[in-house]
Structures are given as structure tokens and as C-alpha cells.
């Protein structure tokens, strides 16, 4: 394992994070876990940015973009969680099954 170049490990980590995030998104039935899964995916992408900055040598630009991404996705998480709270109030449950009335 230690013979593998560093970028390769990081690429694996990125794919791992994004993959786990998507799997969680598909498999979970709890709204909060959905938001957490989204966070996982974004963090994986953030890592991709860091890697890209490293590979091209443009570390400062990558860092700036990364910070902006963190801010943006935190706002999205906050809004998502507040919606989850409202759903809990109105429908009494955090199960995604409650969210399948709009179809066809």
C-alpha cells in the first residue's frame, strides 16, 4: 500500500467518499442521513479540488475555491435540515416514505 503514489491514494479516497455518499443517499430512509450523505459527497469533491490544486501547483486558488464551497454547502445543509425539521413537525416522521405522495 505504501508503494502507491500519494495522488492515487487520494483519488481512491475521493471516489470512496463520493461513492459512500451516493450509496447512503440511495439506501437511507432517514431525512437527516440524506443531508449527511450530501455533505459526504461535497467533502469528497472538496478533496478533489485540493488534489487538483496540488497536481497543478495552484494551491492558493484551490484553497479559495474550497473555502467558498464549504460556505455554500453549509448553507445548503442548513436549509435542508430546517426543511427536515418542518417535515418532522407536519408529518410526524423523518422517513422518506412520507415524501412519496407526489407522483405520476
Amino acid at each position, binding site marked *: 500500500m505504501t508503494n502507491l503514489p500519494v495522488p492515487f491514494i487520494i483519488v481512491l479516497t475521493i471516489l470512496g467518499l*463520493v461513492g459512500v455518499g451516493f450509496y447512503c*443517499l440511495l439506501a437511507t430512509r432517514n*431525512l437527516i442521513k*440524506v443531508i449527511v450523505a*450530501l455533505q459526504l*459527497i*461535497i467533502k*469528497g*469533491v472538496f478533496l*478533489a*479540488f485540493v*488534489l*487538483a*490544486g496540488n*497536481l*497543478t*501547483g*495552484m494551491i492558493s*486558488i*484551490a484553497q479559495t*475555491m474550497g473555502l*467558498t*464551497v464549504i460556505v*455554500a*454547502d453549509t*448553507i*445548503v445543509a442548513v*436549509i*435542508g435540515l430546517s*426543511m*427536515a425539521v*418542518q*417535515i418532522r413537525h*407536519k*408529518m410526524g416522521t423523518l422517513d422518506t416514505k*412520507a*415524501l*412519496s*405522495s*407526489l407522483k405520476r
Partner: protein
Amino acid sequence: MDINFLIKSMLFLPLVASPIVYLLGRSSVRKGTFLGMSFAKMFTVLIILLEGCLTYFTAKDWIGTSSSIYTNIGTVLIGFDGVSCLMSLIVVILGFCVTLFSFPYMQDEDGEEKFYALLLALIGSIVGLGISQDLFNLWVWFEVMAISTYFLVAFYHEQPASLEAGFKYLTQSAVGSALALFGIAVLFSQTGTVYLPSFLGAFTALDPMLYIGGILIIVGFGVKAALVPLHTWLPDAHSQAPSGISAMLSGIVIEAGLVAMLRIVIVLNEVTHIWGLILLVLGCVNILIGNLMALRQTEVKRLLAYSSIAQVGYMLVGFGVTLYIGFTTGITGAAGGYFHMFTHALMKGLAFLAAGALLYVLHLAKGNHSPLVLDDLNGASKKYPAVALMFSVALLGLGGLPPMAGFMSKWQILVGVAQGQTAWLIAVVIFVGLNSILSLAYYAPIINRMYRHEQSEVVTAGEAVSSWMITPMVVLTIGILLLGVWPSLISKITVPAANIFLSPFGF
């Protein structure tokens, strides 16, 4: 006036005004008077009108030149070109109409001040998206736009259906943004900069990173632009949102996703024309699926939402064909796509506003949050002649019948397709034409229902329509009819916008 100043103020005006509107509105809530709220509403309209003036002056300075105008905010490059002009124009017109429409519609709603504040933020972010010239800036404004819409879609937070639509929209849109960001990261890793012009020489046709990045970009922004099969959030979100927001969403927000995708794909297309083919095929799928799904709908706003999916397909066909067959045969397809963006904003905006007006007077004004179904429309023309007439104009225009503007924009797109001169492109022309007729099969019965003599019960018990709602609809109707007989009015903007396909950076 210095044009750089004009461009920057065009961007910052709505963004700065947004919290002011919120505070003004909030003060009335806390003090329990209506004065603050009225000030807030008037202030919103004023800001939008001011924004319109700024757009006009900027456009006036720009229209003579044939290229983009660049300026800086710090080290970030922004530029005003044809696409920016078109986006700002659409968002100002739609924003103005939606604001006026929402005065009676959102009256006394819980959280009304947030509505207008977020609407201004939405307008500002779309202007920002239009003038972005680098990859990351584009994504940031795209994200701000998305964030402004999340709460607007779930505005009726007491209604379970709205919350459901809002949550699903948020999740899928966030997934899309993440994928788009991933694509940007991949592209960034190859060139070390997010500055778009630098991508021109960065890839060869066999570079796998090009394809990975490109696909992620298309899928990521495509979720927002309602490509099939990424469109599943759209019928819920557009039908549950307040009608003014439905108009904004269908009219400009999904197009903004399309524009963001195009900015990047145009550059990638320099290497290989396969991207145009993908967009062309996806466009045809959109048209077919959108029309077939809309055919069996019974709820009016859901029907209009599915029809938006089909209309995005037309735009994709126009853009795709210009990207695919190369620019030497002309940019008519892309100019048609941009023209269709404009006419769709007008027509779908009018359709949603008319449906919203009927929804309001028949259901909402009585506190009833049930959706507007087709049976409710029976006989509506006797009681609401103006709304029925304007709704008919919008629907017939969406179906591509003259003398409405939709006919002219579809024609321009099809001219672009036909210029390929190959047999299967002619087949695409016939396919698109037949689908237009299929769409008439669900638009025309609505008009027939409205003009019946026998009124449905809700129509008989309905309230009167306020002139705050009628006026913006009249503005949109006049625009549709005018462009329908005089299509070259907008060519000064759509043709330079399409020229970006030829020379991505105006150099």
C-alpha cells in the same frame, strides 16, 4: 456612464437591496403595521425597474460593438456579452411581472417579506451567472441562485406537499451542484486555472479527463436544466411553488442551468463535436418524454411543468445542432435556441401567471391549498375573459402556432437543424414538427374547456381578479404577439449571443 461601473452595479444592486427589503418587511411584522410591508413591496419594484434601466444602458453601450466587454472585481474576471444581455433582459422582465403579480397573490402570507427578499437575490444571482467568465464564478452564482430558490419552492411550509417538493428539489439540486463541481475540479486539474479561455488549447481529443469532466458538467448542470432522466424533481417543484415562482423557475432558472452548461461545453466542443451530438439526442428525448408525460396530466400546473421539460428539449436541439454540425454552416440553430429561451420565458411565464391567477381566485383566496385541476377550468371564460384569453394565447404559443412568438423561435431552431443537409437531420426536423403537434393535443383541450358555457362549481363561486395580476399578464401577451409578427426585434441580442459559439471569447 462608465460601462464597468454599470456592469458592477447591475450585479450588486439587487443583492444589496435584498436584505434591505427583508428588514423593511420585518419591521412591519414586528410593529404589526402594514406600512413597512408596502414600502418593501414598492422598493422591490423600484429596484427591479432600476435594474432594468441599468441593463438598458449597458446594452446600449454594448450593442454597437460585436464582442464582449470585460472588467474585473478584484482578480475575478466578469464580462458582458450577448448571453449576459439576454439573461438580464429575461430576468428583469419576468421579475417585474412576477413581483406585480405577487402583490395580491402573496398578500398576508406568513413570511411574505422573505419572498420579496429572496426574489431579489434570485434576480441578482442570475445576472451574476450571466456575466461570469470563469468556471468557478459560474458555479458560485449558480449555487446562490439554487439556494435562493430552495426556500421559495417550499414557501408554503404548512403544506406537506410543498415541503415534500422542496426537500426533493433540494436534494437533487445539491447532487447536481456537487457533480458539476466535481467536473470543474477535473477540468481544473488539467489546466491549473478556471479561466475559461485557457481551456481552448488544453485538451486533445483522446484525453479521458476531457470526457470525464464534460460528462460530469453536463449531468451536474443538467439536473438543474431538466434533462431527461434527471428531470424528476421538476413536476413537483414547479407545481407546488407559488405561481410567480413557478413562472420564474420555468422561465429563467432552468435556462440558467442550461446557459452555465453551455458556457463550458462550447469550449470543450472545440476539441470534438461529440458534445453537440449528445445535446441533440438528449434534446429529442426531452421533447418526446415531456410531451407524452404532459398528455395524461389532470393538474394544470403539473401539465405546464412537464411542458417545460419539452420546451427545454427544443432549446437543446437548437444548441446541439450548432455545436455538432460546426459553425461554418451558420449559427442559426444557436440563435434560435436563445430566441426560444426568450419566448419560452414570456409564454411559460404568462401561462403560469394565468394559471396562478385562476388558482388564486378559485382556491387560494379562500385558503384552499388544493391544486388547480382541469375540471376547475370549465367555463372560466365568461367570468374571467381577460385571463382566459391570455392563457389561450400562451398555450397556443407554446404549441407553436402563429402568430405567437413560439412559432418564430421554433422555426429558427428548425432552420438551423435543416442546414445540416443530411437525411437524419431532416428526420429530426420532422420529429420535432410532429412533437409540436402532439403538444397541441394537450394544450388545445384546455382552451376548449375554458370557453364552455357550463361553468364548474368553483368558477361560479370564484372571486374577482385583481388588476395587479392582469397588468403583468398583458405586458407578457403584448410581447408574445409582437415577437410573433416581428421576430427580428430580438435578433440584435440573440445573434451576438449565438456568435459566442463561433468564437468563445470574442477575441
